[in-house]
Structure formats: C-alpha cells, structure tokens
C-alpha cells in the first residue's frame, strides 16, 4: 500500500471529492492563494478555481454560517477553520444553527457540511492557540464529531464526512500533519460512529483518539517488550461515541487508562470513564485512570508547556501504576 502523510491524505481526499461531486466546495481563510495555513489545500485553487476553493475574509461566524445556508440549498461545503481555537467566534453558527436546523425544523432540510480544523498544543502557540475543546462539540446533539489518528483514517473519515448529510466536525491535529502511514488506494469510506481496536492486548486497555493514538501505540509496543500486553482503542468518532467497543475491550482486560490532550476536568476522558462505570463496572480490577492536560491556560515557555501536556512517559507511568495496583504479574 502506498505510504503518505496525514496532510497529503487530506489533500488527496479533498481533491477526489471535489472531482467526484460538483456540489462539494471548500471555503475558509487563506485556503486558496496562501494554500492553507497548514497547506492542506495546496494546489486545489489552481485545479478547481476560486468558486470551489473560496478564500474568505476573517469572519468565521459569517463564513461558517454561509456554509450552513449553502448546505441547506443542496451544496456540500467543506469549511476550514485555521485552528479549533478560532471556531469559538463561529460557535453560535455551529451549535445553534448547523446542529439544530435539521431537527428543530422537523427534518425538512439536512445540513450536509464538514468543518475541518486542527486542535492541539505542543507548538508553543500559547494559551489561546493551543486548545483541545473538541469535548464541547462532542457534547452537542445534531453534530457528528470525528478525529482521525492516521492518514488512512483521515482519508476514509473525511470521505464519509463529506458524504454524510449532517454537519460533521472533523478534528485534525497540528502534530499529526507530518505523520506518515499506509493509505489504501481507491474509494475508502469509514463508518462514522465506530471506534477501532488498533492494537490487541490482554492486560490493559488504553482508550484514546487523534494524537493520543500515536502515543498509545508507541507505548504499547514498548511495553510489549516487557511482556505487558496493552490493547489500544482509537475512538475515531467522539459523537456518536462507540461505547460498546471500548467497554468490550475493558471487559476483557479489566484495566483501563484514557489518554487525551484535553484538560482533565470535564474532558473526553470523563465520559469514557463514566461509560466504563456503566458498561464494565463488574469487570474493572482498578479504577479507570485518566491521563490529561494540567488545567492551566497553556503557557508559551517550553518547559511549562511540556509539563502541562500529557506525553508517553505519563502514560507509561500511569499504566504501571494501574498494573501494580492490581498486582499484575507477567
């Protein structure tokens, strides 16, 4: 299978969908002449012209809302917001409009649109440019929220998102853009709402998504050498949330750790832990643990940023604590 980067997989998929369906169009700040803040749309303006790869002014509320209206008339807009952080100025359109229009008006008009943006810290972008607020969107009925961790999933989930008739929040991650992986040729359409066991294991389950999956897989491989068998569940979809997949995994392993880049309190991990409480309580040998970010506005200074964000060493430490706690022996 050809190997490509997460960035390229996104670019290829946008190109394929623009080619396939003339109702698909892109809009966002600097996606045309500038080729995108993170170059996801490189080359597309030249190929498809300014009507289908539309540069917008700095007016997220306006252009996200415009995408909603275009979707109501049958178009399939794919909006880029430069980073999740800037979606806050558009959130009324996303949550009070895109997420509501289908249900609130009695199912008369779907809103087939995708809103893409990267989240994530770790680039020293400081407090207002490093947030992981996807849990906000994951909380909202009417939205679908997906978060691919590999180039292959980036392709298959973006294709699914574009062909879905509901508004889909498509969460990318700054630190994944340059990661590489195998991507199958030809049309690939993921099933939204399904998690995946991306590595099987027997001793403990790590549940995570996006950048966390990459860290978890590395960690799992490393622990494998020590005779610790870690199963990794990649959520892939934050709404709907595939509880059955991770509950089944934990019913098997009896131990669970959640890894996320988000702040600890009220983060994604809270819902995972609460769901395991409901779906795997009788199987748990130890409390589910959460590895998440320290609850501060993320500082610019590198040492502080590193201290605040979870990394592989935090995950390993917590896995060991859970294993020790349950008298695990190889």
């Amino acid at each position, binding site marked *: 299978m050809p190997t490509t980067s997460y960035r390229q997989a996104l670019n290829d998929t946008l190109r394929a969908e623009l080619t396939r369906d003339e109702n698909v169009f892109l809009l966002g700040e600097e996606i045309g002449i500038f080729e995108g803040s993170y170059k996801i749309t490189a080359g597309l303006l030249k190929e498809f012209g300014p009507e289908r790869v539309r540069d917008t002014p700095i007016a997220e509320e306006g252009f996200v809302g415009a995408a909603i209206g275009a979707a109501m008339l*049958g178009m399939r807009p794919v909006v880029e917001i430069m980073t999740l952080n800037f979606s806050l100025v558009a959130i009324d359109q996303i949550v009070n409009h895109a997420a509501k229009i289908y249900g609130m008006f009695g199912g008369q008009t779907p809103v087939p649109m995708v809103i893409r943006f990267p989240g994530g810290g770790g680039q020293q972008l400081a407090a207002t440019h490093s947030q992981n607020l996807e849990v906000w969107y994951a909380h909202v009925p009417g939205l679908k929220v997906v978060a691919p961790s590999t180039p292959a999933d980036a392709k298959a989930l973006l294709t699914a998102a574009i062909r879905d*008739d509901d508004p889909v929040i498509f969460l990318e991650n700054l630190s994944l853009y340059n990661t590489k992986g195998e991507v199958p040729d030809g049309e690939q359409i993921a099933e939204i709402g399904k998690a995946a066991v991306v590595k099987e294991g027997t001793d403990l389950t790590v549940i995570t998504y996006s950048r966390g999956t990459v860290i978890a897989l590395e960690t799992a491989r490393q622990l494998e050498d020590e005779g610790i068998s870690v199963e990794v569940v990649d959520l892939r979809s934050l709404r709907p*949330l595939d509880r059955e997949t991770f509950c089944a995994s934990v019913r098997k392993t009896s131990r669970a750790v959640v890894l996320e880049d988000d702040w600890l309190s009220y983060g994604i991990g809270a819902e995972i832990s609460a769901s395991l409480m409901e779906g795997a309580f009788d199987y748990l040998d130890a409390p589910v643990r959460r590895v998440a970010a320290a609850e501060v506005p993320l500082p610019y200074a590198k040492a502080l940023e590193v201290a605040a964000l979870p990394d592989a060493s935090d995950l390993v430490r917590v896995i060991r604590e859970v294993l020790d706690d349950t008298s695990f022996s190889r």
Partner: protein
Amino acid sequence: MTDQAAPVTAGSQAAGSFPGDEPPEVLIGYYREMVLIRKFELTADQMYKRAKIGGYCHLNLGEEATVVGLMAALQEKDYLFTNYRDHGYALSRGMDPGRVMAELFGKSTGVAKGRGGSMHLFDTKTRMLGGYGIVGGQLPPATGAALALTLHGKPGPDAEAVMCQMGDGTTNIGAFHESLNLAAIWNLPIVYVIVNNRLGMGTTVEAASGEPLLYKRGASYRMPGERVDGNDVVAVREAAQAALDRARVDRQPGLLEVMSFRLRGHSVVDPARYRSAADVEEAQAADPVPAFRAQLLSAGVFTEEQAVQIEDDATEKVASAVAFADSSPAPTPDELFDFAYATPVANAPQALPGQPAAAREPRL
C-alpha cells in the same frame, strides 16, 4: 426620535404614495393578507393566554403592511429567512394558517412538526427557510443560500434571490457586519431587510446604534441602502422588488430599511410599560390596517361590505386554523429521536433520561 421620524429619504415610492394605478384585485389581495395576519396574531395572543401556545411568542401586529409588501415583492422561486417574529411572513408566503397555528400549538401537523414553535416556522415548499431565534443568526445562513444560488445558476431577470429579514436591533451584532461584507465581496443575490419598528425589546434605535439611519450602514460594504415607509404596502413592495431585481440581474446585494411600528410589547408577555404614552399613540395612529382599509374605501377599490366580507373571511380562516390545530395530534415521546440525524450512523444516542449510555453486562 429625530432619526426614526425622519421622512423617507429613499425608496422607489414617495412617502404616502397613493396606490391608484394598482389593479384593484392586487390591492384587495394585500388587504386580505394584512387582515389575515392581524386576526391571526390577535388570536395567537388569546391562545397564548389560554396556554395553547407556550414558550416565546412574538407578533407582527403593526407590521402588516411591511410584511405583505415584502412578501409581494418575492417571487415563488425566491428564498426567505426571517427572525422569530415570523407568523405574518409564513402566512403571506403562503403557508396554510392551520399548519402555522398547529406549529404554535406544538402539533405534529405544524409546519415544523411541532419541534420549532412560534419562533421557528419553516417550509421548504414555500421556500421560507426559517424563523430564527438567535438575534442575527439568520444572516449568515441566508448569505450562504445566496452563495449557493451563484454556484447553481446564472444572474438574470429570472434568477432566484434571497431575502433576509431582521429587526433594527439586529444591526448591532457582529453577524450583521460579517454577512453583509461577504455578500458584497462575493456579489450575492440577496436583499437584507431591516424591519425598523423603533425598538429592540425596550431599547430604541438611537440608544443602540451609532448611526441610527440604519440603511446607511450599507456604506461599509459599498452596498446600496434605502429606506421606505413600512406602512405603505405598495412602496414597500416596489422598493423590495427593485432591490431584488438588482440582486437577480446585477448580483448587487442590497440593504432595505422598512420603517414600521410594533403595536404591542416585544412578545405576548411583555406589557411594554417602558413605552411612553406618546410613543404608543404614535404607533397606534400609524396602524396600517385601518389606514389601508380607509384608503381603499375612499379610493373606491372596495366597498364597506366587501371589506367586512374580507374581515369575516379572515376571522373564519383563523377560526378553522385554530380548530385544525386543536384537533391535530401532538407528537408522542416515541418520536423523540426521529430527526436526530439525517444520515443514520452507528451508536447514535437513544437514551431517555435515566437510561445508562452504556449497557451493563454483569460479570457472571
């Protein structure tokens, strides 16, 4: 209230224009619609008091000429977005009064199947794409609908266009600015209509807007702005039609300010104590329904008898709307998740309150 009382400075018709060269059936049609709205709204007010209607309920009382004039300017193929003060638009746009009343009653036969209520009237057939309750919320989607039109079709006299209605208070929120700017740079076929009824809830235009001549705010986008007397149904229609034509043919978006009055409180539960007696009197003196009636009578467009007939017809229509709404079924709890998603997906939440999200599988 200088700026709001200012004579109509723009618009295709002079203030107080006499609709003498209009075919009588057209004028009578307008009166019919105005009266229907008036009766519908007065009845909605009663029904609210009888708790048949819940939530928020905002009436078009006093705005009938504005509503009918604007709707007369729209062609069937055009799209309409409004704010939550939307009953009159729905009726004048051609929705069945029974289905509108049923929506207010929260019934399955309502235009939004009882899910939206008074603020959220919506009907794909008549191309009224909502009724929105967030101030300014309708502007970006309306702008996007106009964008879709440019991607679907070509400009010209037969092109589709979008009308986006809003209140005066709405011109101070960010979405107004962003939307008009997008329409301007993208040359979108849209007319933004400000229904200036002088008040937000209790806040006057002067207190809220640095430039209280609201139509002038088009200048920030090189967008032509006009003001028209909202109590003159024909003037409103003409001004709106001219703006819509520029939108269709030249892809020139426009801003139209329609000077109107709100006869009652902000919503049915607002006694409007903050309004001075003089302001209330001014609004009542300008009431477009009796004024238009008198105008048509004195011009011989219809007789007193015909007028009464129209009014009785309207009363009748509203009564059967209420009867229809009353006898319609309400949605039942098993339908709760019916419109959760347009494309079904795995693991969509279906839990009712108290049901766990994840199924427990007790260890044996």
